[in-house]
């Protein structure tokens, strides 16, 4: 899957879980988008459901921004 396409899909899921600013710096801390620790859990859960993947706990705990989420998802989906 194209990187841009994956980002779009993930942002769509994020938007379903949480109202976030329209223009987002994917490298900014999640808190800048108003996403707290529980929001992040809900977002990861929704992403796992959507893609049928499991993001390991160690990987999930290292997530600081949306770029990290995209990378974590990319690691789990078949190339």
């Amino acid at each position, binding site marked *: 899957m194209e990187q841009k396409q994956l980002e779009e899909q993930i942002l769509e899921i994020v938007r379903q879980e949480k109202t976030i600013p329209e223009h987002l710096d994917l490298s900014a801390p999640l808190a800048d988008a108003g996403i707290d620790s*529980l929001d992040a*859990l*809900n977002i*990861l*859960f929704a992403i*796992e*459901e959507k893609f049928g993947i499991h993001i390991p706990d160690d990987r999930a705990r290292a997530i600081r921004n949306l770029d990290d989420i995209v990378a974590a998802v990319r690691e789990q989906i078949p190339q």
Partner: protein
Amino acid sequence: MKPRRVVVTGIGVISALGRGARSHLDAAVAGRGAIRFIQNFDPSNLICRIGGEVPDSLMAGEHPSADRFARFALIAAEEAVAQSGPAIDPARTAVLFGTGMGGTTTLESSYERLFSAGQTRMPPMTIPKAMYNAATSAIASRFGATGPGYTVVSACASANHAIGQAAHWIRSGLCETAITGGSDAPLMPGIIRGWEALRVLASDDGDPSTACKPFSVDRRGLSLGEGAGALVLETHESAIRRGAEILGEIAGFGLSMDGGHLTDPTVEGPLRAMEGAVRDAGARIDEVDYVNAHGTATKANDPTETAALHRLLGARAARVPVSSTKAMHGHAMGASGAIELALALVALNSGTIPATLNWRGGDPDCDLDYVPNEPRAGAVRFFLSNSFGFGGMNAVLAVRTTRGVE
């Protein structure tokens, strides 16, 4: 030193009767019940398809991320705090809420995924939404309260335990203000099935509104309800100082345990709790001029509670009005004490003694004045509000109405 007196300056309530103290006063004055066929989910394969259900439309879109029982609690607490006024110091405010079942809605839907839909993952909010203190914590967050707080779980006595304990916290100086009450949302298929198995639920006979018949010979069991009641409590002195309207006084709290059977009640346990509440209020038993009964409409509770009232009131027993409002809103378990106290206080403060609906009499072991079927005008000053829970948990509040608060 004279003990600090604890008064009510805010009342909030949501139940099958509606949202807000006003709707509960209206229902009490009209003698109207609201137990209905369950509509919030399809109950067709249940034996008991009725309950005192809060219509979803009453809280559409509010606090959507919280479990149903916490949403009820937040809505009731918001009403109570709004009425009490803005002068609450969050650092000196306690939150002490009761619940019998906690976040059943969340648990049932998550378990359904796991056990029925073959999923292996649970929604991440399952635990924080379902935990028993979710309502207490949601209220603390909503108002920034940082004083003492925890959650009381004692089956159907939970709310009374919470309110009584909160009053004692204020009396002792542990806090200045308390947001207290009870909340429960047990109208879920798994919980109803559990109650069905105990064979204590009333069947509907085609008309849900007449299924629950407290103290009547033809009673066939309880009807479950749901909702929340909330009170803001503070010292009498602080209410006077800031000019808050005093809506009543939590004058005394009596507790006891049956110390015996898990579900069969005793006469002595409730009696000792009622005596304790009057004693704690520094009052005399002959001052009790109304009793808001537990009155579940089960075979076991009603004659036992009646016998305890005979022992408490003696020769006055036949003259003191006793009513159960559970026929109006159902038995809301850990919320029941709070919903019933809210309803009783607003009704009594306006001169109305709530009725026991669907009463036909005929049980020689239920021979008190139950204010049958029609509310009655009366000037009550000091009353008891009873809640008795499975596991032999008895909690009674002794309350002064606005007439009784001096």
